[in-house]
């Protein structure tokens, strides 16, 4: 087999990143959220252009102006967010843009359907998908299968699978891993990105780990183990990274839900959150955590009962939620938390405008006083409150979002993945802030995709699966393994 090498040098999301994969191997790419894996892959697939550095394939330099160049050169990518067109049929999506089937600018429908069916059989697809159906009608799992077939059918030289199993069943996963193996055995390069260690161990030949935008280690799969890989991913922990968990949980229940339902998304969620408690919410993506948080904040209207301090309440919009003392720190600060064009002051005062209003006008002095105060408390690094939010660092921006919600004087805080895209130093500050709030008696619902955080910052954790609470973990049962087990529907120890 020819030795194939690729190398990148990059800055920003990727800092002088190198990556080498060989022909005939399945090469896994591991790393936490924000480590740079997706960026790397998007550069390779032509979706993004690198600031600096180069790509070589079989010794030849690659200049990718866009995804079409990459596709033409034989780089096929199964995207995490999928690249299907919902209004078109399955067959149309699979054969999109392929010249081999067109004659005189027209594509024969029946040929397409037959070809699609053929493909399904050739690759042993486990599910009967109708080539005539529009992609919009398919379930997420079916769409993912279609996306995979679409890319494989083009017989690419380099096959990139970016979290291609997120919606698949166990059987599907085995099928895909087998396919990946077959591809590699034919001499192609397979790059496999996944959060799931089990899959990686089963299918990969070599593993590269990324952290903070750089390549921190390449290992042969049989020369390493999960622990080493995980420690590479997380890096050396800052001493005192996680705060000491003082006992802050009180006996009274702050927030309680009973049979919270929202179509398929929430199927009867019941939990209790106590005053002074940090209750973690864990689970894989798409298990209902988003609808849960949005329902509690009034963005969605779920069926079922919500009790605050034992009293039944109706929450139909965010302003009502705020009035009950509930505040949400949302997932995406760029599209939900902050208006980057406005100043810190204007952003922070938005939820409390009613309180700051005197005869229809904003009380600027009071506004300034409150903002400066909270900026000091949270140690937000900015000279004046009039600085535009867009000029702040990611960590500081996140602090502004938290501060903004704190100004509403909430008693119950809903925190959704608040340490995402935040530097280590700020993370530590945030952890301490959360524990501090609990110590003062506030109740906090804390969702995080980082299992370590859940275990070390929260008093208890509920794990969601398929729109329900799958497990409640605290004390001795609150372990990383149990969270992972519950996330995939297994029984906890």
């Amino acid at each position, binding site marked *: 087999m020819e030795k194939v090498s690729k190398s990148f040098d990059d800055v920003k999301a990727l800092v002088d990143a190198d990556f080498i994969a060989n022909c005939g191997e399945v090469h896994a790419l591991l790393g936490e959220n924000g480590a740079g894996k997706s960026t790397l892959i998007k550069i390779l697939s032509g979706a993004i252009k690198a600031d600096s550095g180069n790509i070589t394939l079989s010794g030849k330099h690659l200049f990718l102006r866009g995804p079409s160049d990459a596709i033409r050169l034989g780089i096929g990518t199964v995207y995490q967010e999928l690249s299907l067109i919902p209004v078109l049929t399955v067959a149309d999506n699979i054969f999109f843009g392929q010249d081999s089937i067109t004659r005189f600018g027209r594509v024969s429908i029946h040929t397409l359907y037959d070809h699609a069916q053929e493909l399904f059989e050739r690759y042993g697809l486990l599910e009967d998908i109708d080539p005539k159906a529009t992609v919009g009608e398919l379930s997420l799992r079916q769409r993912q299968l279609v996306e995979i077939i679409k890319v494989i059918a083009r017989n690419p030289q380099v096959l990139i699978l970016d979290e291609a199993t997120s919606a698949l069943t166990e059987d599907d996963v085995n099928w895909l891993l087998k396919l990946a193996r077959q591809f590699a055995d034919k001499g192609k390069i397979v790059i496999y990105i996944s959060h799931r260690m089990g899959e990686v161990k089963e299918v990969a030949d070599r593993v590269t780990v990324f952290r903070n935008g750089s390549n921190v280690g390449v290992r042969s799969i049989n020369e390493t183990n999960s622990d080493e890989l995980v420690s590479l991913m997380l890096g050396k922990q800052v001493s005192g990274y996680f705060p000491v968990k003082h006992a802050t949980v009180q006996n009274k229940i702050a927030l309680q839900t009973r049979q919270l339902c929202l179509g398929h998304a929430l199927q009867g969620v019941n939990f209790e959150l106590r005053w002074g408690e940090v209750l973690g919410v864990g689970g894989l993506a798409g298990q209902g955590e988003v609808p849960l948080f949005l329902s509690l904040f009034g*963005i969605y209207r779920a069926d079922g009962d919500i009790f605050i301090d034992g009293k039944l309440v109706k929450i139909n919009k965010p*302003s009502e939620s705020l009035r009950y003392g509930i505040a949400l720190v949302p997932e995406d600060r760029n599209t939900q938390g902050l208006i980057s064009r406005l100043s810190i002051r204007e952003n922070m005062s938005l*939820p409390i405008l009613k309180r700051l209003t005197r005869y229809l006008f*904003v009380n600027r002095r009071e506004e300034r006083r409150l903002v400066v105060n909270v900026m000091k408390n949270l140690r937000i690094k900015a000279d004046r409150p009039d600085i535009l939010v867009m000029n702040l660092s990611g960590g500081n921006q996140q602090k502004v979002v938290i501060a*903004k919600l704190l100004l*509403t004087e909430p008693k119950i805080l809903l925190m959704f993945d608040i340490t995402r895209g935040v530097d280590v130093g700020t993370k530590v500050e945030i952890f301490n802030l959360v524990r501090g709030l609990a110590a003062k008696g506030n109740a906090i619902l804390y969702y995080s995709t980082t299992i370590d955080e859940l275990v070390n910052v929260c008093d208890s954790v509920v794990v969601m699966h398929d729109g329900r609470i799958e497990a409640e973990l605290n004390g001795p049962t609150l372990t990383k393994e149990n969270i992972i087990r519950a996330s995939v529907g297994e029984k906890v120890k």
Partner: protein
Amino acid sequence: MRNIILFIKRNRVIVLSYASALLIFGVVSIFRPGFGSISHLRVILMDAAVLGMIALGQTFVIITSGIDLSIPWMLTSSAIFLTRMSAGGNSNLFIIIPIILLGTTTIGLINGLGISYLKIPPIIMTLGMNSILMGGLLGITRGSPGGAAPSAIEHTAVGTVGPIPVIFLVWIVIIAIATIVLTYSTFGRRLYAIGNSETVALFSGVNVRLVKLIAYCISGFTTGLSGIFLAGRIGQSYLGMGDPFLFQSVIAVAVGGASILGGSGHYIGTVAGALILTVLNGLLPVFKMPTSAQQIVYGVVLLAAIMMTRNQSLERG
């Protein structure tokens, strides 16, 4: 001093617009002395005032990242109802004017309901409304001319206090109110928030739908008011008198530095835009350009304004 420089930097387009207006005016006055005369200046101020008032509603709506294309026929409706119901006389104006204003505000309300609550795109809703008003008015009047404006209105619109036109003074008051509302009021804050990101506003507890609705109601109200003044300025009403103002209102707002995407801009800027357009309008007869050139000039001016604000928003990231 530092504050002034910062102000100029942040509002480059507005300052540029005012400067341009003055520059054009100055240059042309040198070549055509009549242009810079007091009487002509008075005309310019009067016309700018009317345009400025018309563009006020548009300003509010554009800040919410919407648009109001029903302004032309709201203007015409307001003017025609004024002339018809008053039959040129001054009695009953105390009843007629509030009725007209109520009417146009209701139209704005309907616009707002469709846009805010039914999620109909602003272009479609207001364009459709414009068409409805046109059809309705044509049907009612059967194409016959509108009639003369009541003298009281005419005097207000065309009269002067000393050298200064009354209508310009009215405009100054309106400018002051609008500026205060946009800069200092809670409503103004919410308006800008929504224009920038409805999602963030929603997550911050703002009643997005209501604020947008109010913006369109304001547009209806100010347009009704402007229609009355317009009738006074021209002295009469006729079908189609509001049509030129579709472009002009949008251009005035855009030239004034507001991003069409919403969330930025200020009425002060629109004022500058109104001044520039009025001065440019005055240029055409000076250089003996046909009215066709007017439309072309409008398009070019809007293009230039877009290019400028695009640079500004690119700079801001």
